[in-house]
């Protein structure tokens, strides 16, 4: 079958890291990812089924991997070679259309009894992502055993699948997984007094929509670089959108803060950082009120950071990873009510993967939001 395969090739990974630093998405051309004919993954155990993707999204974490920006933290919790792709709507062999819940927790790994996190309804904190009867991998799309969505078929455990509601188009259904991430992040901050969402890519936009979906009525400021991002953020519920360089000024005026150096004396209670860079973290820390929370929603990497304000102003830096089953259910509703299928701007066949990745890596400048692979017309899928 056709699949985009990511292999452990140190030299190519280094080349991707260099190329990706200069031109976002360029890692696809020189890095260790390539379109190959490979065998379909075997079903690891009973309870596993074959999924034939219809649409499979390209996520920021995929791009970071392709461009060689990912942290070495992931090394023990991914297994090579793997087929990326974890935002998936696909078909089962019986024709049922399903949405993938990609996190690989105790249940699909056959670990019994499950870990405390899984038992406690927080499978995103699963303590066993490197164990069990499949290879390490925090999610489908980073695990050798399962394959991933950027192919014509992969393996998924029944517990990882939810039936796609008939009223959701494929474009809407492929947004459910990232929307669940946003619901989870928004849930952590929804009781905040005032919130800043940094970044207006897919996750940033979804997080804005999720906050309003969860009933957050407070002040919501977003940052966006591009006009279409700004317009969409306002549509989805931001009260105001600032250019990244203008954020401090806008928050200062909003919160009537004073300014000391480049730090506001007062600020917002919560920052949801949908970028995850050193710059975005520093920016978030500058606009938080004492005791405020900076939550990393976008995947960060190795960063160098001045933590003095965290100490002095008793700030909190935390993460927001994936989702719980409850979040996933809420995400379906969010996608439906906010019509989030419209965020899928362009789709590509696997053969044009370099263009697709380039488009996704430069989505902002090219007026796009979500880019996905369209597998519906792949010949071998329909044999």
């Amino acid at each position, binding site marked *: 079958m056709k699949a985009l395969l990511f292999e452990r090739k140190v030299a190519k990974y280094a080349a991707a890291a260099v190329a990706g630093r200069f031109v976002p998405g360029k890692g696809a051309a020189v890095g260790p990812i390539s379109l190959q004919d490979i065998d379909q993954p075997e079903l690891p155990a009973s309870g596993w089924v074959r999924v034939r993707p219809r649409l499979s999204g390209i996520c920021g974490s995929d791009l970071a991997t392709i461009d060689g920006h990912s942290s070495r933290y992931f090394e023990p919790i991914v297994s090579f070679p793997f087929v990326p792709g974890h935002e998936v709507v696909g078909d089962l062999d019986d024709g049922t259309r399903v949405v993938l819940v990609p996190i690989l927790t105790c249940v699909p790994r056959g670990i019994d009894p499950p870990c405390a996190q899984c038992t406690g309804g927080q499978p995103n904190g699963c303590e066993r992502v490197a164990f069990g009867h499949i290879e390490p991998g925090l999610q489908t799309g980073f695990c050798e055993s399962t394959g991933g969505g950027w192919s014509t078929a992969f393996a998924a455990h029944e517990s990882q699948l939810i039936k796609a509601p008939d009223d959701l188009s494929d474009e809407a259904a492929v947004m459910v997984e990232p929307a669940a991430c946003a619901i989870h992040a928004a849930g952590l901050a929804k009781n905040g007094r005032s919130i800043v969402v940094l970044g207006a890519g897919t996750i940033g936009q979804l997080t804005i929509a999720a906050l309003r979906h969860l009933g957050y009525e407070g002040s919501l400021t977003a940052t966006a670089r591009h006009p279409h991002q700004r317009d969409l953020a306002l549509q989805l519920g931001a009260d105001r959108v600032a250019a990244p360089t*203008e954020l401090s000024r*806008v928050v200062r005026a909003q919160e009537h803060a004073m300014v000391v150096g480049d730090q506001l004396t007062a600020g917002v209670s919560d920052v949801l950082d949908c970028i995850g860079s050193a710059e975005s973290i520093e920016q978030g820390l500058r606009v938080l009120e004492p005791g405020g929370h900076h939550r990393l929603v976008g995947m960060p990497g190795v960063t160098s950071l001045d933590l003095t304000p965290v100490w002095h102003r008793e700030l909190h830096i935390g993460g927001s990873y994936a989702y719980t089953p409850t979040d996933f259910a809420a995400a379906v509703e969010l996608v439906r009510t906010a019509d989030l299928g419209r965020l899928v701007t362009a789709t590509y066949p696997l053969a044009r993967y370099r263009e697709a990745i380039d488009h996704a890596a430069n989505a902002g400048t090219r007026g796009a939001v979500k880019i996905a692979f369209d597998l519906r017309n792949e010949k071998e899928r329909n044999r």
Partner: protein
Amino acid sequence: MPRPGFVLDVDRSTPPILFWAGEGFRLERLPAERSRVIYPPEPLDPLPHPEAAIRHALLNPLGDSKPLPELLFPGMRLTIAFDDISLPLPPMQRPDVRQRVIEAVLDMAAEAGVDDVHLIAALALHRRMTEPELRHAVGDRVYDAFAPTGHLYNMDAEDTDNMAYLGSTEQGEEVEIVRRAAESDLLVYVNINLVAMDGGWKSTATGLASYRSLRHHHNVRTLQHSRSLMDRHKSALHTSNWRMGKVITDAGVKIFQIETTLNTDTFPPPFDFLMKREWEWSAKDRALFLGSSKSLARAPSRLARQIFHSIKAPHAMASVQAGEVDAVHEETIRNVHRQQLVEVEGQTDVLTMGLPYICPYNVNSIMNPILVMCLGLGYFFNLYRNKPLVREGGVLIMSHPTPWEFHPVHHPSYIDFFEQVLAETTDPLRIEAEFEKSYAEDEWYRHLYRTSYAYHGVHPFYMWYWGAHALQHLGRVIIVGGEPRAVRRLGFMAASTMNDALEMASDVVGHSPTITHLHAPPLLLADVQ
């Protein structure tokens, strides 16, 4: 003998007309047979002996005031307040008229044995003046004698301990001015009356006042009923200031008002061709126009700004009068009219104007879009008596590049006003109701006003209200050459050429509208019959 202003009817032989456009100019050919151009009077002859004229005014006061020397005595508290950097425009060549007047007052004070003297820059809510700006206004001798000991300073309207509440008018308008001025034995106010709006009770009741006081007349309702701001008897703003003047008088504040008028000698060589009528341009003038236009167009905006802001006007004092406020101001207004008044027959469908690089609030600074609005709709539109130059529902066309650019030190609250308030609405009443208070009371803006060189947080609101009467009156506003994004934010339309602008105006005023061009600066005041 200087020639009076006049109105030129444009015909086919009329050469293209000069339009200011920020730090540049353009020549525009106006449609023949239905266009006219209002030219300002030529500069009046300067007073031949300004020092003697000042001394004469101080010794022969108007109204019921005694001569200044009789008001001075040993042991008294004397305060001299003077107009700030917003006057005159452009800043005048040394010696500034304020320096001449203040030196004369100080000489008399010294002769009388007065040694408790404070000199206060009457900023109200304007930005503080820098040391070079103060030196330019009062002269080095005065600055060096008073500033180092803390006796010459910028007022601080947010220093509540040093502001004095004097009471309220019958309309409930609170009057609060600088305590030192209010509690002195004599307040001498040194004014420059560049336009008819300046001076009178506005000097003290506005120039030395706090937000608490100013909000009673710097508001939308008052500005919409000031028709015009340049006609004090038909200006609600001035009526309010005059009511406050009564409160100040009743509180026992003794004022000796000194008002000066300047002639309209506005631009020195090589820019003096800007004051000439186009058909009188010499070959040298045409060469200068071409050369300066082309080089300014090529120059980075920062350099062009530097060039223009280095211009010091050769303004000369045309009159000086001193004494009791009302009597002085009546004479001052007569002298302003003598210099600036031009009789104009009837209104027009389309009023055009070229906006220069400077207005009262961007001396040594950037003319941001809000100031473009204020200069066009607040100041130039109001350069009339009786009736506006343009008919109700007519169109105003201004030329200015209107860049989306702000001086971060001078105009911090303007940036937020532009980004936050105007993004929501351009309706002055909504702006006043929903946003003014939070900006006026914002601690950071207060801090910057008091310690840096920032206009007060509420100041951009006043700029917007200044244009409230014009916004109500006009059917459309078009800015030729304006940055489209910034112009749209102002709620106006951007045109790339004058022809495009006239085409856009035709939706409102038809295809053959009458057009009147206000050929300023130099400044004029249209007396519309």
